[in-house]
């Protein structure tokens, strides 16, 4: 099963490599990975998509959690959350009826065209993994020439405390 993991890690030299290395060393796959800093520039968030049965995912989160600089690793599948990714799709739909048909699909998916020429167009699509994948499937008959996907990001739905707040409290407690 597909799982989205949210990992908050101290923003330091080599940490990304240590975490990615753990996946390859233990034979786990990484389907997508995004990394950027959080509100606190000392902390990075990695959103990582992997696949595995429940035991495997539990082992992965435990292996992540025990890393010295990992502040928190959460399997977002166990949390109500919102996922998004963006794809830039180069579609070879030439001017004419074919393009009209492609454009109507773009409209249905609430995507937008960001570049266009006689040879085709570039579509920017945003949504969860399923939506983006579905759109790509439907655009395939028009001749997709290149796809760039950002990989999934995920955020927990509104709740008492966010993950970032939890980690900030943890750091404050450690400082005290």
């Amino acid at each position, binding site marked *: 099963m597909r799982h989205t993991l949210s990992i908050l890690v*101290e923003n330091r*030299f080599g940490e990304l*490599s240590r975490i990615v*290395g753990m996946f390859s060393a233990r034979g786990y796959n990484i389907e997508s990975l995004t990394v950027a800093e959080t509100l606190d520039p000392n902390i990075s968030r990695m959103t990582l998509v992997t696949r595995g049965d429940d035991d495997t995912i539990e*082992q992965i989160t*435990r292996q992540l959690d*025990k890393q*010295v600089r990992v502040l928190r690793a959460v399997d977002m599948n166990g949390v109500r959350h919102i996922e998004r990714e963006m794809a830039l799709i180069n579609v070879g739909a030439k001017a004419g009826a074919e393009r009209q048909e492609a454009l109507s699909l773009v409209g249905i998916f609430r995507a937008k065209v960001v570049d266009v020429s006689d040879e085709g167009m570039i579509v920017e699509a945003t949504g969860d993994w399923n939506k983006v994948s579905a759109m790509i499937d439907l655009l395939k008959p028009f001749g997709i020439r290149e796809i760039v996907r950002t990989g999934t990001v995920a955020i927990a739905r509104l709740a008492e405390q966010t993950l970032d707040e939890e980690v900030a409290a943890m750091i404050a*407690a*450690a400082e005290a």
Partner: protein
Amino acid sequence: MSATTKANSADLTAASAQAAPVMRGARILCEALVKEGVETIFGYPGGAVLHIYDELCRMRDRLHHVLSRHEQGAIHMAEGYAKATGKPGVALVTSGPGATNAVTGIANAYMDSTPLVVISGQVPRKLIGTDAFQEADTVGITRPCTKYNYLVKDVRDLADVVKEAFHIASTGRPGPVLIDIPKDVTAETTEFDYPERVFLPGYRPYQHGDVEQVRRAVEMMSKARRPILYVGGGVIHANGADESLELAARLNLPVAPTLMGLGCFPSGHRLSLGMLGMHGTYWANMAISESDLIIAIGVRFDDRVTGALDKFAPQAEVIHVDVDPSSIHKNRRAQVGIVGDAKSVMQQMIDLVSDEAAATSKSRLADWWEQIEEWKEYAPLTYEKRDDVIMPQQLVEELHALTRGDAIISTDVGQHQMWVAQYYPFNGPRQWLTSGGLGTMGFGFPAALGAQVAHPDKLVVAFVGDGGFQMTAQELATAVQYKANTKIVIMNNNYLGMVRQWQELFYDRAYSHVNMEWLPDFVKLAEAFGATGLRATRPDQLRATLQRGLATPGVVVMDILVAEEVNVYPMVPAGAGLKDMVLK
């Protein structure tokens, strides 16, 4: 804390606080080691660590340095020191080949959860990434085999890094931590202000177990009809030998240690079943296979212990106590998982065992103990002596008798290691130094030297094979230079015995490159290094040779020729269940 925030806070307090002394990085490193209570470091100099060695020369009286003859030797020495004392071992190597030579030792310590702090030199910062002379990506190379590692890019971070490194290496599940220091950082100066505490918000090693889970565990232990206490290296790391004895005695529990756990429970005790696993005793393996409750403490259900996992102890419920949360449920699902330090959790358990459960344990487990005794009688550990040749087991038994079981013994990996595990009953913890997880040939001799440095007056014996000894025999020079009293016993069967055994059993006796067709004359080799060399070739020479060797001061190599084609039994073939043991 980063260098900049630390500098700011230093500015704020500068007016009020006494000015800290200014030193170069090399000196800060050495002073920090002294602050950590380090007395001895094991190392090998080189270009990138010249400033550090310059300071070591000035600090001779406060920081003792042991010069190995190869960096691998230095790391194994540090590990032997750490295993024998429980304190982190410290090693120092240069950049490039110094660091890559150290990797086997570091990986060995990682697999056996030994606390080490390894310091490696690095090329100056401006040369990093230019393929400079003796440059290697040491942090990259050692990342998968260290608990944590650092590249120190600013001398103002150095003291904090050393403090953190010792904390990380020695707490939680211990392990090696590497600090890579560019040469120019060791030359730069700053104030030396050793921190009193570390700031690691994401690193929270567990101490006590969850009270509710411990209560559940003790309830199960008080009811079980066929329980077994399965104890490993984690009990030794946590200094929990007394607690394991008390817990077992209170509930009359049979105890089976792993290879790494040998010594955490007195081998001669009536509750001890001997070692589990591939070459464990028949009765220990049968007992765990037929148990209804496994109380696993400081162990990881390693494949060498469980055999085929799907056939392992099918009727048993599992209580698993480990300081590393990722060990629990990794190989075998536990009904009760308790994350915590083995010593603390066992104490919690002892406190909760009711007098009633303790009083009735004897009758409750009477049938179980009777069954275990039957297994023990059915297939005791045994071998046949011969008149013409020394049997390997006989050598171990003789050594045990002459040392009264009190020696610190280190081994390499293979047949000789298994025979020591079977025939040298250890009385206490930190007496047994072996390479369990990684299985490193060449570990035994340097590890013995490290233990000898920690315990100069104790008898330390490196019990090695003819193959493994050749991998790190150069450390004989180290041993003689430092006037060690270490004794080396070579169980010489002229073969890479364990590989030969597998070729005999599973490859139709097609011996492929396992015969040491040319061995050095180990007696002359010892003499060439300035050590004493002795040899025994017949059973009637065995005792006298060992006696003489143990009584001779200084480094002694005893080359003991044993029967060549003897197999270690019992044996669980790879991929088989524990009950499918081959007995002979």
